[in-house]
């Protein structure tokens, strides 16, 4: 049995032969050998496709050779006929699985076309799936994106298959009830907001009941002590005079409102917006949070809602639209919701802030790249190490011009503190309130170097 890994690195297809089990050894294969391997794969049947993680699948062939391939690889444009044939083969296999499911359904209903049982559908409570669905959604997304790329009007709908779900994967969902996080649960959102794209409603009786029943993470009787971290950070002194004041004038109320509502520190978000936004001209400011529409339009955010007592048990849910990004409020909401998502992904305010600039998956990508455990880089206590790791990773892969490696310093310059001054930033992570003392050590450091 041979194992192969097909990957995209530095915008190029790279082919590896893999040896070893617990500690894999990757050997780069030259283009002639890779051609032979692709042909070998094409001449064998696919026995099984297994999701390894969200963006990676393992394909087992009838000769028991295994191919590990990422979504990036399958979506990467290429004129190579063998590669095109390989991708078509994988898609054909997936479509064949859907046909199989539909045929079984047709047999069950004796050829009649069934309709959804709407009452029973609605009666089921909200449900959670982890890795089981992840791989399938990867394939689903792959099918849709390839269909888009091929400019087909008809979308390719990719089925979920039992071949994708083995016993081990089913067990993953068994652990979900105990692992469930406040942010993982969806309730109907609270007060209506202005933008037409929002779907906020008053919580239903059912959702309130669900909330009371779920004592895992929402039980207010379990109080968590506040945690404080100290960060010594060298502040820059190049702040643009008056930019923070203009940010406050035009966006201060919105930032204040959503930061308080979504458990974020307003001082930091005002500073971040001051760093991000272009100039305000005649009361207009285009795309203040510099949201890249193509990545965000259509994305639905679900954000826990907080008040002065902490987590309220409610969530705001909204979908980003192109029109909403062109309004101050919609843009601010998308920016802050994305920041919240980055923070939740890393359990850290500063790492989350850095991910806002470097890309949400950066930390997990860096950890995967260096073979590190992401848990060692999560949390505020590891924030500086995490940011250094992301910088190292991007510098290694993309050189000196990937985002803004000085992003934190560039944001911090808009936080009003004096030299050697300190500011306390408070935010919520789940139910925990976390305080971070950010100390400006610029003067102190320059004293040391004298």
């Amino acid at each position: 049995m041979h194992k192969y890994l097909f990957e995209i690195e530095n915008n190029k297809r790279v082919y590896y032969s893999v040896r070893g089990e617990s500690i894999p050894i990757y050997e780069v294969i030259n283009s002639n050998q890779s051609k032979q391997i692709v042909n070998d794969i094409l001449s064998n049947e696919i026995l099984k496709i297994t999701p390894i993680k969200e963006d990676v699948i393992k394909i087992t062939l009838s000769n028991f050779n295994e191919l590990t391939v990422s979504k990036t690889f399958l979506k990467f444009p290429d004129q190579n006929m063998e590669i095109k044939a390989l991708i078509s083969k994988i898609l054909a296999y997936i479509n064949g699985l859907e046909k199989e499911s539909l045929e079984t359904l047709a047999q069950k209903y004796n050829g009649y076309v069934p309709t959804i049982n709407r009452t029973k559908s609605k009666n089921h409570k909200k449900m959670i799936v982890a890795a089981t669905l992840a791989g399938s959604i990867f394939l689903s997304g792959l099918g849709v994106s390839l269909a888009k790329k091929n400019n087909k009007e008809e979308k390719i709908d990719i089925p979920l298959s039992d071949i994708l779900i083995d016993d081990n994967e089913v067990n993953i969902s068994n652990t979900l009830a105990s692992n469930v996080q406040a942010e993982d649960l969806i309730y109907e959102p609270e007060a209506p907001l202005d933008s037409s794209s929002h779907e906020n409603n008053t919580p239903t009786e059912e959702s309130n009941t669900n909330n009371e029943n779920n004592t895992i993470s929402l039980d207010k009787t379990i109080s968590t002590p506040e945690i404080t971290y100290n960060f010594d950070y060298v502040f820059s002194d190049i702040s643009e005079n008056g930019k923070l004041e203009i940010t406050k004038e035009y966006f201060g109320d919105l930032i204040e409102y959503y930061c308080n509502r979504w458990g974020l520190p307003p001082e930091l978000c005002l500073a971040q917006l001051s760093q991000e936004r272009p100039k305000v001209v005649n009361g207009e400011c285009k795309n203040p949070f510099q949201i890249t529409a193509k990545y965000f339009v259509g994305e639905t955010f679900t954000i826990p809602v907080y008040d002065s007592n902490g987590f309220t048990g409610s969530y705001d849910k909204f979908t980003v639209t192109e029109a909403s990004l062109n309004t101050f409020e919609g843009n601010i909401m998308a920016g802050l919701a994305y920041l919240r998502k980055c923070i939740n992904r890393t359990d850290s305010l500063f790492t989350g802030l850095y991910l806002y600039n470097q890309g949400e998956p950066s930390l997990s990508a860096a950890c995967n790249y260096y073979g590190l455990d992401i848990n060692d880089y999560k949390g505020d206590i590891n924030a500086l190490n995490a940011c250094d790791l992301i910088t190292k990773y991007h510098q290694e892969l993309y050189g000196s011009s990937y985002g803004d490696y000085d992003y934190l310093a560039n944001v911090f310059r808009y936080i009003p503190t004096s030299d050697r001054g300190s500011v306390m930033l408070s935010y919520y992570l789940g139910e925990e309130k976390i305080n971070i003392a950010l100390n400006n050590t610029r003067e102190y450091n320059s004293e040391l170097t004298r």
Partner: protein
Amino acid sequence: MNNITLTDIDGNKYKADIIFTYFDYTYGKDYIVYMIDNDLLASSYEKVNNNYIINNDLSTGEYDMIDKIIERKMGELNA
């Protein structure tokens, strides 16, 4: 058919047979069509903090749309 275990927010588990997943451009949402105890059900799903959340509260328009997709797919089977 394709088996998967779903867990609701109270920790109850359901074995489901999954028929297909579908992304609808009009609603901008991902949907999943599946069977539990011989009932054909549909939900939308989305990714929240690395977990996939299945939401069962769909609008009439969404159910109508999914019924049409099922009809189309079943029709294609016999084509």
